[in-house]
């Protein structure tokens, strides 16, 4: 989210950076408008998870597994928040100068009080560090919650919680540091990731793919009827995700100004372009435009614009969203079916593939000739190369560690519920309750 600096004002690079609590200096000013906007943005991102993502996913599973998905999203959110305060914030933004992690400097938020300030993208403009910590906390919470869609309807609840705990520690915090902290490896490569396309979506997508492969397909996959139990709730969730995403993207600007406005309009236009594209592609390919297609396009567009929101133009964003829909459509249909793995809610197909298209597309559509805010010396080729490098590093690191974690947990405690529990449904088998009593 600070990548914007290197483009709009190279000087800002030498100044304060988010995540670096700074001593109050005489010229540092805190704008109440910025603070209010960042507080609202933080809550918008929380709303993306609960109830947004929870309902989006919940509607897509069978009714016997509805509550398990809601429960997973809820408890993951709570656990990540606690971990974030204990050591997550420190590991990501603790002030350490290593390229891969932030150190122990801010364990239990050591040294932070209500007078602590974090830098924004404008020299001398600060926001309370507590707001920055809370804002980033919601990002850390949504990322592992995205992964649960890949192995929905069969994951063992305790195994999932252990996985998430290890995964945020070994994958999310280091990658967040690498991409967003001033000392981070990818930050210093010059990779553009405005609001977390790499850190959040590619990261979650590749972990999801590994999870789906290790845990194996659901019983009856490809044979039994596994259609979404409530497309209505899925659209309610997707709509909440879209609204919440303005906190995610425009909030990543850290100030309520023109930069936030650009991210805001892009979050509208890319998504609109993606929804239309998916509907048109489906109409042409099979004669009917489906609501699940529209909702999928919506999320694909939102994912794709996430890294690009602060640096592309509103028209370029429409194109980027449409391209993301095309890529995801092809992936979740013919390509996925060819491989035969069961990424139940297409976490990799939408977040992974959409994230990769967005990250690489950022290197293209940031070009001033395409309406982006890149400077006169902006080179599509070299920026795209840096973007690709960031994507590959995330895929390799995230993929490898996730795969190992899933394997270890599978051996140690078993990743899946037993067959009887899976047939009965996780709501009753794992949580002892039912979603609906008609």
């Amino acid at each position, binding site marked *: 989210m600070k990548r914007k600096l290197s483009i709009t004002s190279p000087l800002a690079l030498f100044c304060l950076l988010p995540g670096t609590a700074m001593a109050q200096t005489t010229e540092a000013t805190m704008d109440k408008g910025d603070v209010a906007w960042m507080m609202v943005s933080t809550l918008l991102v929380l709303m993306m998870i609960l109830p947004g993502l929870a309902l989006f996913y919940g509607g897509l599973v069978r009714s016997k597994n509805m509550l398990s998905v809601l429960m997973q999203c809820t408890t993951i959110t709570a656990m990540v928040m606690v971990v974030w305060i204990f050591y997550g914030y420190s590991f990501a933004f603790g002030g350490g100068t290593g390229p891969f992690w932030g150190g122990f400097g801010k364990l239990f938020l050591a040294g932070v009080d209500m007078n602590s300030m974090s830098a924004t993208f404008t020299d001398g403009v600060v926001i309370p560090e507590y707001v920055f910590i809370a804002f980033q906390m919601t990002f850390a919470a949504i990322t592992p919650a995205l992964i649960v869609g890949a192995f929905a309807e069969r994951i063992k609840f305790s195994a999932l919680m252990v996985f998430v705990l290890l995964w945020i520690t070994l994958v999310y915090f280091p990658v967040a540091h690498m991409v967003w902290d001033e000392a981070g490896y990818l930050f210093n490569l010059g990779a553009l990731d405005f609001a977390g396309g790499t850190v959040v979506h590619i990261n979650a997508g590749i972990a999801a793919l590994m999870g789906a492969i290790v845990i194996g397909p659901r019983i009856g996959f490809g044979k039994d*009827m*596994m*259609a979404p139990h409530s497309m209505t709730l899925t659209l309610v969730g997707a709509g909440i995700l879209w609204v919440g995403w303005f906190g995610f993207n425009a909030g990543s600007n850290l100030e309520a100004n023109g930069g936030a406005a650009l991210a805001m309009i892009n979050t509208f236009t890319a998504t609109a372009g993606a929804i239309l594209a998916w509907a048109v592609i489906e109409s042409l390919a099979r004669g009917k435009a489906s609501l*699940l297609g529209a909702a999928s396009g919506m999320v694909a567009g939102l994912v794709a614009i996430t890294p690009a929101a602060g640096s592309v133009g509103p028209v370029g964003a429409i194109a980027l969203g449409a391209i993301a829909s095309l890529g995801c459509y092809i992936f979740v249909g*013919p390509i996925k079916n060819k491989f035969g793995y069961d990424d139940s809610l297409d976490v990799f197909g939408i977040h992974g593939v959409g994230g990769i298209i967005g990250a690489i597309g950022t290197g293209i559509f940031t070009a001033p000739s395409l309406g982006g805010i890149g400077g006169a010396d902006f080179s599509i080729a070299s920026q795209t190369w840096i973007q690709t490098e960031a994507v590959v590093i995330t895929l390799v690191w995230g993929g490898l560690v996730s795969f190992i974690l899933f394997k270890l947990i599978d051996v140690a405690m078993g990743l899946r519920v037993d067959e009887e529990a899976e047939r009965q449904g996780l709501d009753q088998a794992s949580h002892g309750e039912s979603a609906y009593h008609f």
Partner: protein
Amino acid sequence: MKLIIATIKPFKLEEVREALTAAGATGMMVTEIKGYGAQSGHTEIYRGAEYAVNFVPKVRIELVVADALVESIISTIEATAKTGKIGDGKIFVLNVEEAVRVRTGETGADAL
């Protein structure tokens, strides 16, 4: 007395009910069911996954009528439930040995 069981398209229910009442039926039982015959379902596609939905929603009407009414009731259902397209349904006729009205104890056709 005969028991007439008719499976029809759900949206035809109100039209059939009105016509049967006009034809002299004094009551009926209605159940929402799923099933298939020649129509044999349809497919639904969710992203890349295609599912065959074999059982399609239908409405089952059951009514017991006096022998004299059987022919006109059958022809009424046939005429009103018909769209000419596949999936219009079927009509079955069974013998009924006895009927009792619980409130009064009347039996046979008087109980209908």
